């Protein structure tokens, strides 16, 4: 067992989380449940996640193709529900990335993931603003979503 192989395991899980988010946005964009005003946001966030996947794959020495499908919430009935679920999925993924930082070994790999966490925190903020919620509900990411 080497540091690189241990980091690769952690990164594989992080990549899977990014793939899940790409799948989520791709699916909701295809359903037509987003208004024209919301579609560019969904596309932009999805594009960021694709970039995150590529960076993480590069950091881990390459990881295979995404799964064909991921489970989705059943209640994606309208834009309000989609945005709410997007915020939840983004927050969940961000928190998992944050915890992964504690076990990564290589400093350069930690930096890549921290850079992604920062932007994913911004995703949550934008989605919370869209819902007219406090965009920055706490002083630390580890505080969670707050109210």
């Amino acid at each position, binding site marked *: 067992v080497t540091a690189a192989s241990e980091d690769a395991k952690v990164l594989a899980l992080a990549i899977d989380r990014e793939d899940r988010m790409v799948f989520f946005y791709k699916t909701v964009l295809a359903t037509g449940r987003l208004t024209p005003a919301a579609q560019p946001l969904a596309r932009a966030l999805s594009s960021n996640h694709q970039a995150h996947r590529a960076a993480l794959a590069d950091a881990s020495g390459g990881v295979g193709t995404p799964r064909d499908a991921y489970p989705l919430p059943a209640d994606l009935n309208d834009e309000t529900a989609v945005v709410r679920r997007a915020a939840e999925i983004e927050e969940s993924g961000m928190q998992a990335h944050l915890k992964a930082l504690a076990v990564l070994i290589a400093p350069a790999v930690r930096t890549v993931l921290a850079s992604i*966490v920062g932007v994913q925190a911004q995703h949550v903020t934008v989605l919370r603003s869209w819902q007219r919620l406090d965009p920055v509900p706490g002083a630390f990411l580890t505080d969670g979503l707050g109210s």
Partner: protein
Amino acid sequence: MRRRSFLTALGAAAVAACTRAEPATTTIAATRGPASPPTGDAALIGRAVVRERAAVAAYAVAAASPLLTAPVKARVEAFRAHHEAHVAAFTRALELAGHRRPDDLPVGPPPATESEIVTIEALAGVETALMTFHLDNVGRAATGELAMTVTSVLGVEARHAAVLRALAGGDAITSPFVAP
């Protein structure tokens, strides 16, 4: 014991949230090296205290501007409180580990406040610089736990920057990555 107090004080919630045990292999232990003395991390956190204090000072200047509208002023006050919480957490960690709090250093020129938009843009600049500073520290931290805790702070500053950029009429998210 001293080191655990140090980390626990800084990021108890963050450390407790970490449920994945570190791999315990000889190879990895050798890669990590011996347990680092807290001195290196203490210096890192001391510098973070200084930078966060500078952010508090910048926000205080901005909040005093009579040109801010009520919603923007409320946002500025909220973000200042976050930076005060960062200062408090970092300082508490230093003191509990037996280190003295760092001296105040010159904080640079105050943010421009000629208009509301100029003030907002200046604060966005403060946040961007702080994010970059913390990201650099993530790579320097002796432990993953400290890297995670610093990222917890960095992420909130990334959120601040996004809100401020949007208030200034720009794109909230300008890149897929927090760039060093």
